[in-house]
């Protein structure tokens, strides 16, 4: 399944690239992308694994860019 989030306050494309690279490393994730222009983060994974993955992805965003807020799109 696919889930989309908005990263509010994402101001630098560099940060978007960093987040994308890190999120893609989460075990169990099948696809992940961060679109800087639309500030959208899309995660793809099996339904059962999703909640854990969303949690990890949020933690990664918080770690890399504490000022960016993850909002459900």
């Amino acid at each position, binding site marked *: 399944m696919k889930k989309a989030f908005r990263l509010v306050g994402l*101001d*630098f494309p*560099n940060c978007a690239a960093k987040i994308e690279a890190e999120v893609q490393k989460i075990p169990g994730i099948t696809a992940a992308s961060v*679109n*800087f*222009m*639309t500030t959208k983060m899309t995660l793809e994974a099996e339904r059962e694994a999703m909640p854990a993955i969303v949690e990890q992805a949020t933690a990664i965003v918080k*770690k*890399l860019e*504490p000022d960016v807020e993850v909002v459900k799109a």
Partner: protein
Amino acid sequence: MKKWNANQKRIARIAAGGIVFVTGLLIPFSGYWVRLGVFLAAFLLAGGDVLWKAARNIAHGQVFDENFLMAIASVGAFIIGEYPEGVAVMLFYQVGELFQSMAVAKSRKSITDLMDIRPDYAYVLRDGEPEKVDPDEVEIGELIVIKPGEKVPLDAEVTEGSSMLDTAALTGESVPREAGPGDALLSGCINLNGVLTARVTKEYGESTVSKILDLVENAGSLKSRSENFITKFARYYTPAVVILAVLLAVIPPLVLPGAAWADWIYRALTFLVISCPCALVISVPLSFFGGLGAASRSGILVKGSNYLEALAQAEIVVFDKTGTLTQGVFRVQEIRPAVGSPEQLLELAAYAESYSNHPISLSLKEAYGKGLDSTRVTDVQEIAGCGVVAKVDGRQVAAGNQKMLARLSLPQPEEHAAGTVVYVAAEGVYQGSILIADQVKPDAAEAIRSLKNAGVRQTVMLTGDTKRIGEQVAGQLGLDQAFTELLPGDKVAKVEELFAQKTEKGKLVFVGDGINDAPVLARADLGAAMGGLGSDAAIEAADIVIMTDEPSRLADAMAISRRTMGIVKENIVFALGVKLLVLILGAAGYASMWAAVFADVGVSVLAILNAMRALKIKKEPA
């Protein structure tokens, strides 16, 4: 009091820091500690958050981030006693960042405005009452009501009412189109004046509007070569500049006799300020995004920056004929009576063919226009491979091809026209002929011309149609080459042949209507499909979708692509050039840290502004 938003807080902090800074510059404080205190206060006001972020990110194991570099540069300036410089660097950096984030926000907004076609709600008729619901809750077959000014929420078919529709968001077409009962409505269009009731034909997820939004939002994920180059470059650039800075701070004072440490450290600090790759990293994808936005506003959906980039290098453009260069609809083009008036001839032919559903017969009936009185036709007899014989008003009428004339032992006229000719005879006497042909799209000739002007070396047409018709159309449109009587499989083979003729850098573009040519669309460097407003197969298979079905849009897309690539190059050259120049001047001791700040954030802002130009649509003079 209203709560300040993040930007206002930033502005307030920068302003406060600026005021303290200017005070420190103007008033000649006597004591050393007082002076240091004033500048330090200004510094912390302006750049406290940068220092905080730098510290926090180091704790997270991120070293080369721009906050850290800026913190080192400005703290370094303080350590070597250049207090005003330290504060100024931080102030300018902050102002630059502010501009940068405003510019990004603005460009985001103008791009997302383009995509403002998402319907928020739908009025669905349930138990005879309109009920306001989320578009994805509506099911196929339900009736929806669309009032003037509202967006069509789902693909549907009008059952009641008529209105004008603004399709500009989907097609870039400014002329509204009319819709009445039986007409298909595409989601994303805006209903202009009348109230429409319509039966939903597709779920929201399958409707045109969500397909387009999906496409546009995902377009960013297919990155162009330029973007990949920049991302890679940025990865090495920052560490390289930082290493250079360290070398610059340490080696010359040790090697050169009489070199002052403070002087070389200052030069090294200017390096650190320039080491952030933001200007590049931000402006290149932004330019592409602008280009994609401009294209979609002109009714051309490009599925990724890589395709937009490739389009600028189009060298061979191959067209499918039917449905791409021609309308794919048969119409009566010419009526040539041998006896009597054209109307009489058409009437005879339409009646003779009245029982047939062949496209040719349909176009005859359509051209005749009046209703057919079926009692006037009797004894209809289809003669396979020849045509139809029927009694019309008691007269024996034959309509068909040349073989029909042969059957009736009538002389066969010579034929040059491109199309299908229906010959009509009554009671064994030749009455005349009617030419029926697929019509060339009005902008097809212009499309070929403007592609040629844009530097496309070769234009080719592929068709399964007969040699005579194919070559006539190709000649009329000015195509360089035409291959006719091809089976769908032959088209791929022909495209392979053409691949061999192109240069290494040039791209081969195939333009088709998405029917029967999916393999060719996939094989070409770039596949462009006539979207035919909602033709799913075409939207899936192609890299570029022309929403208006006008072949001339391809030339527009090429112009947008070229413009975007121009802007991308400008930005790369400009940003790298200024940085390199300031690096050289800085190493030589001619550039101050102020200049370095400009080279960093100033260039970013200018590059962003330049990137925004890609979003504008410039109409090329025809």
